[in-house]
């Protein structure tokens, strides 16, 4: 075998006669997927352990034959090696590729196996498709069509199992639809570290249940809904809301914490219906926390600031912007409160405004909470590192703006430009804010919006595009999924207009154009918005090693200090 073990450490396997080079230890499903051949499977999930119970991925395996007496390779008449196929099929998920292994993925035996497995799975499966939320993205539906017999021989009474069981606050279970793949059980054990699910009863009466007295209520419970290959587990939030085939997917980022989970936003005609995780092996694998899936409710929340205001009077965006510029030009002591929720582009524009106006202080509001060691980090701002890299701030933000409060009291600060922050929640009092000219740009109407001279209605992360730098110093893009309210203005357009009017020079106000100057020099040198891939690009963050970042260890992140200490 050493001949096959070439320098690159790869081995050769043959899928339907075609040679594929692959890493030793890769299973057959993954090898076949790497050359675009799908081996149907239900229970196998690339990020979970192999359980091999669905039997859908059966394939035929064979090795080149050797003469037992002489040890020489057996050859066909034409001199090619003779392949000895095993008499029975083997599961693709549980079999690792071996050197010179031959795999048949669509032989007659394999097809017959798949048809048989599908027939057994459908024997007790209810005809729920018209009311099943999974319809349209259901593996059983897909594989029944592509690998099933197309008719039913089952004339007996189907099994009855509990329907509409509530497993937890966010997950509903329909046991009749369950095909017992155990993905959800393995997810709870291996990823969420909250072992609450299991099977009871035997044979065709096997039923998925929660352990007595327990609930599936951890912050990762909705991932079980995502990985459920059928409609057994459904989300209570998305239940019966919309069929998936109407929804458009847009790539986005979870704004909840500095982990920056990759997500997909599903919308139809300007209305968002759900958020699901997007696979990124370097950040979040295929998971995301439940809390991040509810952020879309921000778009249609009751306190949404839909129209710009000047002195609490509703005005058009252009009037609000010209009033803001007027106020900024008139006042000399300007403080800027940026946000860790702003994109890199907006923080860059803020930095330029600070330079033009010679701002007396630039602040960010820190948000810190408990981490769970998986995908929720202590830093609840998604883009503090972006603010550091654009040079907007040079130290980590504090939760309270008491320093700014003192400056207001002393009269040093006479105007505040605040972006995406509620200043009253950040420790300033209403009386303090009334002393200064407050210009706020936000999506929600906060108590501090009421005292703002100018309140510019901005856009939520789902309504604009941009880039964020997560805890690994990985820059990742999010894209506009739905249009914003007609009275609102894109944050970058607002900041760009303000900067252009203040400086008297033109300033880019689109994401693509602002990257022309962002990518010219500094930490983002050579990058453009287009060149950032969907998986993100890891930037060099060694310049900030001295800062005491708060994040602990999480799924694909090792804090610097601990890494140094471990060495």
């Amino acid at each position: 075998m050493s001949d096959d073990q070439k320098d690159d450490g790869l081995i050769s396997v043959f899928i339907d006669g075609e040679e594929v080079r692959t890493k030793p230890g890769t299973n057959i499903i993954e090898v076949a997927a790497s050359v675009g051949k799908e081996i149907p499977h239900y229970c196998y999930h690339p990020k979970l352990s192999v359980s091999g119970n669905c039997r859908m991925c059966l394939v035929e395996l064979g090795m080149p034959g050797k003469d037992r007496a002489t040890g020489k390779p057996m050859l066909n008449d034409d001199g090619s090696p003779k392949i000895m196929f095993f008499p029975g099929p083997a599961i693709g998920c549980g079999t690792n590729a071996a050197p010179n292994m031959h795999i048949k993925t669509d032989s007659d035996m394999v097809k017959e196996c798949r048809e048989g497995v599908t027939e057994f799975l459908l024997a007790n499966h209810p005809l729920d498709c018209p009311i099943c939320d999974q319809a349209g993205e259901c593996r059983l539906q897909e594989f029944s069509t592509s690998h099933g017999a197309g008719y039913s021989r089952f004339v007996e009474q189907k099994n009855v199992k509990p329907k509409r069981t509530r497993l937890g606050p966010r997950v509903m279970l329909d046991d009749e639809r369950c095909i017992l793949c155990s993905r959800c059980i393995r997810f709870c054990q291996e990823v969420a570290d909250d072992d609450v699910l299991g099977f009871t009863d035997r044979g065709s009466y096997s039923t998925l249940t929660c352990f007595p007295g327990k609930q599936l209520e951890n912050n990762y419970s909705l991932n079980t809904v995502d990985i459920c290959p059928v409609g057994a587990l459904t989300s209570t939030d998305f239940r019966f809301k919309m069929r998936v085939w109407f929804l458009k997917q847009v790539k986005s980022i979870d704004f909840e914490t500095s982990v920056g989970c990759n997500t997909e936003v599903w919308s139809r005609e300007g209305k968002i219906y759900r958020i699901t995780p997007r696979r990124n092996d370097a950040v979040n694998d295929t998971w995301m926390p439940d809390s991040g899936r509810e952020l879309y409710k921000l778009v249609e929340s009751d306190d949404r600031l839909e129209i710009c205001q000047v002195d609490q009077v509703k005005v058009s965006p252009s009037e609000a912007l010209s009033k803001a510029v007027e106020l900024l030009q008139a006042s000399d002591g300007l403080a800027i409160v940026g946000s860790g929720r702003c994109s890199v582009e907006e923080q860059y524009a803020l930095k330029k405004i600070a330079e033009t106006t010679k701002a007396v202080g630039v602040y960010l509001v820190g948000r810190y909470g408990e981490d769970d060691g998986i995908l929720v980090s202590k830093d609840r701002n998604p883009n503090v590192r972006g603010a550091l890299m654009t040079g907007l701030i040079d130290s980590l933000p504090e939760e309270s703006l008491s320093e700014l409060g003192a400056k207001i009291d002393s009269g040093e600060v006479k105007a505040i430009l605040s972006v995406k922050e509620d200043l009253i929640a950040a420790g300033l009092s209403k009386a303090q804010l009334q002393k200064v000219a407050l210009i706020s740009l936000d999506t929600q109407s906060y108590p501090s919006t009421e005292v703002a001279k100018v309140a510019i209605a901005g856009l939520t992360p789902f309504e604009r595009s941009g880039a964020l730098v997560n805890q690994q110093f990985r820059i990742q893009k999010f894209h506009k999924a739905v249009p914003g309210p007609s009275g609102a203005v894109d944050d970058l357009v607002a900041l760009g207009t303000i900067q252009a009017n203040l400086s008297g020079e033109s300033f880019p106000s689109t994401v693509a154009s602002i990257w022309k100057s962002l990518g010219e020099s500094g930490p983002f040198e050579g990058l453009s918005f287009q060149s950032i891939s969907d998986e993100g690009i890891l930037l060099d963050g060694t310049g900030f090693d001295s800062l005491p970042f708060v994040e602990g260890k999480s799924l694909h992140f090792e804090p610097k200090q601990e890494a140094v200490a471990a060495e």
Partner: protein
Amino acid sequence: MAIILKRKPLNLLEKLYLPQIVAGLSTTLKHMVAPKETMEYPEERPPIPKGYRGVPTLVKDPEGREKCVSCQLCEFVCPPKAIRIIPGEIQDEEHANVEKAPKEFDIDMLRCIYCGMCEEVCPEEAIWLQNQYSMSGYSREEMVNNKEKLYELGGTLPDQHFKWKKKKEAEAAGNAH
């Protein structure tokens, strides 16, 4: 070039005109007693053949339950996008056989092209293009049939399957083991 047709001179019988008058009157008399080919629309309406594609309607099953489960396949398949559905959950578990029903169901009859794809795609046999063929209204809003109107137009059709009812009964009976 102009063509000149030469007209034949009339013979005696033709000159008399009487045979022609008799022939004409006999045709008139024949039609007076023959069955009528026209009808007095709208008081009188033609019989509608089987399989006719009239106005799309929603029907109820013989027990008065909504058949539509709002799977939205008709909305998906509708070529002019005339159908809009907002799905909803049935709260009344006692009476209902199934968990899902449309909250709102609108068919814009100004858009509908009477193609019958919705009827063909419906897995529940809930939407039918029935006999009604004339729709009129004074405004665009009036031409949008909402759920109440659709059920009123549809009425009740016989059902052979009772799929969800059978399922609910099986659930109540439980497993044999």
